């Protein structure tokens, strides 16, 4: 405290003297500095922290981590405007890709007119905004240019430059040639999707997966010809071409080359050995042969003092997945992991992905290996180490759904996904939606509706839009627990996701509604349900008229709707449906439950709606429903006061004689 005052005094002194004379100024400065030096000795020593080097993205990452997801907002890539927010899977895809194609259009214009974009405004210059350089014969090229192009990783340019160079007779050093071979082998002689087109990658990998097991190696491509021009290929060349071929599933050729290299006693790269291990799937048949093949290659590696790496582990596990039926495979898998442990290799997500496949292929003896894996991974921020890592979360969730059938494990998987930046490992939009499909299926099967709806409100529609089959499961789950308050929300969502034409969903929904009508509900709930049934009828009808929906009505469906309408005193829509039944008899499959129709009549009798009764009776007679009409008519006569006109109508409908008969019977009973 005292120090503090002294400080302030000196500061004041300092201020005043500063204004007075410059010569005194210096003295005071000295004074302050000496006192301030003394200050720390009274208390603790001041420790100046070491400078921490921050990369240019660190501060952005820190700020970004403070932003939490807003479940009511669409993804950031969509504009935050009601008109521009997508509400179905189709729209999500269409909007994101439209934006990207707009960007591509701009890109195309720049490439068509590179001369217009050569101005330099930005300092420091930003390479990304400059037009692409086109290589032709007019350029003066040398090896450095080729090196630069390889560095950028543009395959087509690299091939062009190489061809131009060889045309001009310029010699290329063996290092550059090797680098070029690696480049073309890695990309299989074609350009990859440019890194700018994120959306395209996010949405198009669905096709890629189908190609996963097909041989897509271009056997007459540039890489093969480049390899053949090399007179005496060394270990580098062999390794590159073997890795390239097996990357695109040309295993037979790559295994042949591997044998060739072995005969020449070359020591290849670790990944070439891994490729050779993978080739077991294609080259060998039967679990025993495959395992022998793996062992043989591992022994070769050991003889040549080539260590194992993570990819070796994954390759072995990958081969084991294809022989998972063999009881030995589980044992081998664990042994391999233990062997890798000797090299301090920690299994990565794709190793676990393969492990799940190996252990859970047996349906009878269910394995709980996923729990053990989760015990290892829980709370960790994971990094991608293998391209197959992105399969893990989908596989884990699928395992929870079909194999373990356990929600708490699924929840653990989910919380692992939400830890740190792990969400990036979800892969792409397709995998993401499959993941959530499984997640919701488990929720529907195992958990209370309250919990289900909690997740539903959080994730739908901006993260995940349920497929019709999942919608059906959600409806079922609500039906079972009689959570009628969720019906309106669910119906509006069904409409929004364009699933109103899915018959099973609608059937399930209306059945559920009709079964969950308890007289003890509050009046407001009843009315809401009645209104909802009317809305369901109206909106489907409207869509049918405009041709959006091709579903045809069924009698039971309409019967259920009538039931719910009546429950909520929505007589208007109920009558409309009866009219529909009557007028479009031929288009409607089946007839409603006779109980529904009887209920309708009873309701009308109670409320004294004569016209509705007429329509209904007419319908009953036309279709020949199994309704005890006589009792109903007698009820009408008993409890309603009919005008002569109304009596005439009624008697005309059911036949005058018959009517008189019933009338007399009823009267006799009354008297």
């Amino acid at each position, binding site marked *: 405290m005292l120090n503090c005052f002294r400080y302030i005094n000196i500061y004041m002194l300092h201020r005043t003297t500063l204004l007075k004379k410059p010569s005194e100024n210096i003295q005071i400065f000295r004074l302050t500095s000496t006192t301030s030096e003394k200050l720390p000795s009274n208390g603790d020593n001041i420790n100046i922290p070491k400078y921490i080097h921050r990369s240019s993205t660190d501060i952005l990452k820190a700020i970004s981590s403070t932003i939490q997801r807003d479940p009511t907002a669409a993804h*950031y890539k969509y504009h935050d405007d009601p008109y521009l927010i997508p509400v179905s899977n189709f729209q999500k895809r269409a909007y994101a890709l439209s934006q990207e194609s707009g960007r591509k259009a701009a890109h195309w214009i720049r490439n068509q007119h590179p001369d217009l974009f050569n101005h330099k405004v930005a300092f420091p210059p930003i390479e990304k905004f400059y037009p692409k350089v086109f290589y032709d014969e007019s350029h003066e090229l040398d090896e450095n240019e080729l090196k630069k192009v390889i560095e950028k990783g543009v395959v087509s340019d690299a091939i062009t430059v190489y061809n131009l160079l060889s045309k001009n007779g310029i010699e290329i050093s063996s290092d550059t040639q090797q680098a070029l071979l690696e480049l073309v082998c890695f990309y299989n002689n074609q350009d990859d999707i440019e*890194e700018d087109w994120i959306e395209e990658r996010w949405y198009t990998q669905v096709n890629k997966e189908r190609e996963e097991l097909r041989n897509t190696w271009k056997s007459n491509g540039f890489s093969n010809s480049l390899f053949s021009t090399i007179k005496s290929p060394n270990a580098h060349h062999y390794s590159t071409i073997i890795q390239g071929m097996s990357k695109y599933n040309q295993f037979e050729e790559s295994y042949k080359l591997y044998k060739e290299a072995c005969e020449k006693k070359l*020591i290849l790269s670790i990944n070439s050995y891994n490729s050779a291990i993978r080739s077991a799937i294609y080259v060998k048949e039967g679990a025993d042969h495959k395992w022998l093949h793996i062992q043989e290659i591992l022994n070769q590696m050991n003889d040549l003092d080539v*260590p194992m790496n993570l990819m070796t582990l994954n390759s072995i596990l990958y081969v084991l997945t294809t022989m998972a039926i063999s009881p030995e495979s589980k044992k081998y898998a664990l042994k391999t992991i233990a062997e890798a442990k000797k090299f301090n290799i920690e299994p990565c997500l794709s190793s676990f992905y393969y492990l799940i496949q190996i252990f859970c292929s047996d349906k009878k003896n269910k394995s709980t290996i996923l729990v053990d894996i989760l015990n290892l991974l829980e709370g960790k921020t994971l990094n991608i180490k293998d391209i197959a890592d992105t399969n893990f979360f989908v596989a884990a969730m699928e395992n929870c759904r*079909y194999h373990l059938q356990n929600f708490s494990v699924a929840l653990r998987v989910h919380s692992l996904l939400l830890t740190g930046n792990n969400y990036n490992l979800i892969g792409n939009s397709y995998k993401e939606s499959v993941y959530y499909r499984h997640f919701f299926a488990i929720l529907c099967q195992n958990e209370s509706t309250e919990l289900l709806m909690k997740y539903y409100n959080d994730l739908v529609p901006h993260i995940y839009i349920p497929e019709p089959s999942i919608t059906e499961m959600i409806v079922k789950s609500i039906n079972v627990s009689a959570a009628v308050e969720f019906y309106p929300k669910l119906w509006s969502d069904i409409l929004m996701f364009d699933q109103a034409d899915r018959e099973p969903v609608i059937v399930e929904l209306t059945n559920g509604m009709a*079964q969950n009508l308890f007289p*003890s509900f509050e009046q407001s709930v009843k009315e809401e349900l009645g209104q909802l049934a009317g809305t369901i009828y109206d909106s489907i009808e409207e869509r049918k008229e405009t041709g959006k929906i091709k579903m045809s009505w069924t009698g039971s469906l309409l019967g259920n709707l009538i039931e719910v309408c009546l429950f909520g005193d929505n007589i208007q829509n109920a009558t409309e449906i009866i009219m529909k039944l009557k007028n479009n008899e031929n288009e409607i499959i089946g007839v409603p439950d006779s109980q529904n129709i009887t209920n309708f009549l009873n309701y009308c009798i109670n409320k004294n709606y004569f016209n509705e009764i007429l329509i209904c009776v007419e319908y009953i007679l036309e279709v020949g429903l199994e309704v005890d009409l006589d009792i109903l008519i007698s009820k009408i006569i008993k409890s309603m006061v009919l005008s002569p006109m109304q009596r005439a109508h009624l008697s005309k409908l059911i036949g005058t004689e018959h009517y008189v008969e019933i009338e007399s019977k009823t009267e006799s009973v009354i008297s």
Partner: protein
Amino acid sequence: MNHSLPFKCVLYINCSKRSTFRGIYCIARRFKSDDSPPDDKDKSQKNQIAINKLNELLKSMKKGNDSEIIPTISNPIKLSQPRELARKVDQSQENHDKSKKNIQLGEKLADAATSVAQSIGGNTEKTESELLNLLRIYNSEPNGLSEKKSQTSAQLSDLISGMKIDRSRPNTVSSELGNVTKAQRVRELIGKDYNQDLNKRYNNYRKPMDNYIPLNLFSSEPLNIFKNIDLKINDLKLNTWDGLDKKCLEMAVTNPPKNIYEQMIMWTKQGKLWNFPIDNEQGMDDEKNIFFADHVFLEPLIDEWCPKKGPIRHFMELVCVGLSKNPFLTIEEKHDHINWFRQYFYEKNQLLNEVGAFQIKSLPENVKEYYKPSIPEE
């Protein structure tokens, strides 16, 4: 499990026990939250309402579940125990003590009933026994076959999932059985393990998590193929390949940015955005390693050729002062600037001599082409 338990009952429990429990549970919870006032009279009344509601629910559920059993009944060869008999057995056992009843319905169902009864409150025992009775009646009542066709087809899938037929590969299953009708498929699936002991089958329905045995992934004996782990390592590096591989992995986890900051991170990585923290000298790499004194103190440059005094000296000093204050030129440009004057005065040597001023003897080395003056021929 009791062996004498009628087949249908087991099936029923297995098919729909989950949904039944959930239904009861949810309803019970709903109604429980209603009777918060501690008034006893009120409570008992509410309990009565709750029980009524439960009855309704159970009835309605029965309606929904009936159709699930249809396929089994329509399979006359397999059904060894007639329905009526099952009912009789049930009813005769109803008279026995309560504990036996509980066993009969399966322990889980009994447990569920107990918990429901407890959550409702009031006379727990009574509620429980009522619940169990109801369930039993619904189990044994003959089925109304008047179910709608559409409903049947929708709920057949329930049956299949209830039977715990593994569906982890739905694609292959459907392709195999694509031509067979659903009903046929169900019959086949039921037929498969019908002859197995019922008890054993019930065990199969138990979830795998019930008997979880921890497994240490690293506990196994290694392969022992690799002998020398730390010794000389032959590792051939393919630099370009590895670089591309790394890039490829990075791209695999680059998803569309989730907020503006992530987008800015992306822009920074692409080199589009100025870097943070803000640096006004970003991109001025040529000047990074130059000390400020080199920019400010330029006199040493003129010392070697300039006269010690006189107008030229005076002029050149002014040039130095001007340059030292200029923040826009690089050090090289400043040097070039001074050299230009040196050249200029060198050109004017003749004139300077004539006036009697100082003579400049030498030209600097490595003069750039641009600054090379054309020396007039003499």
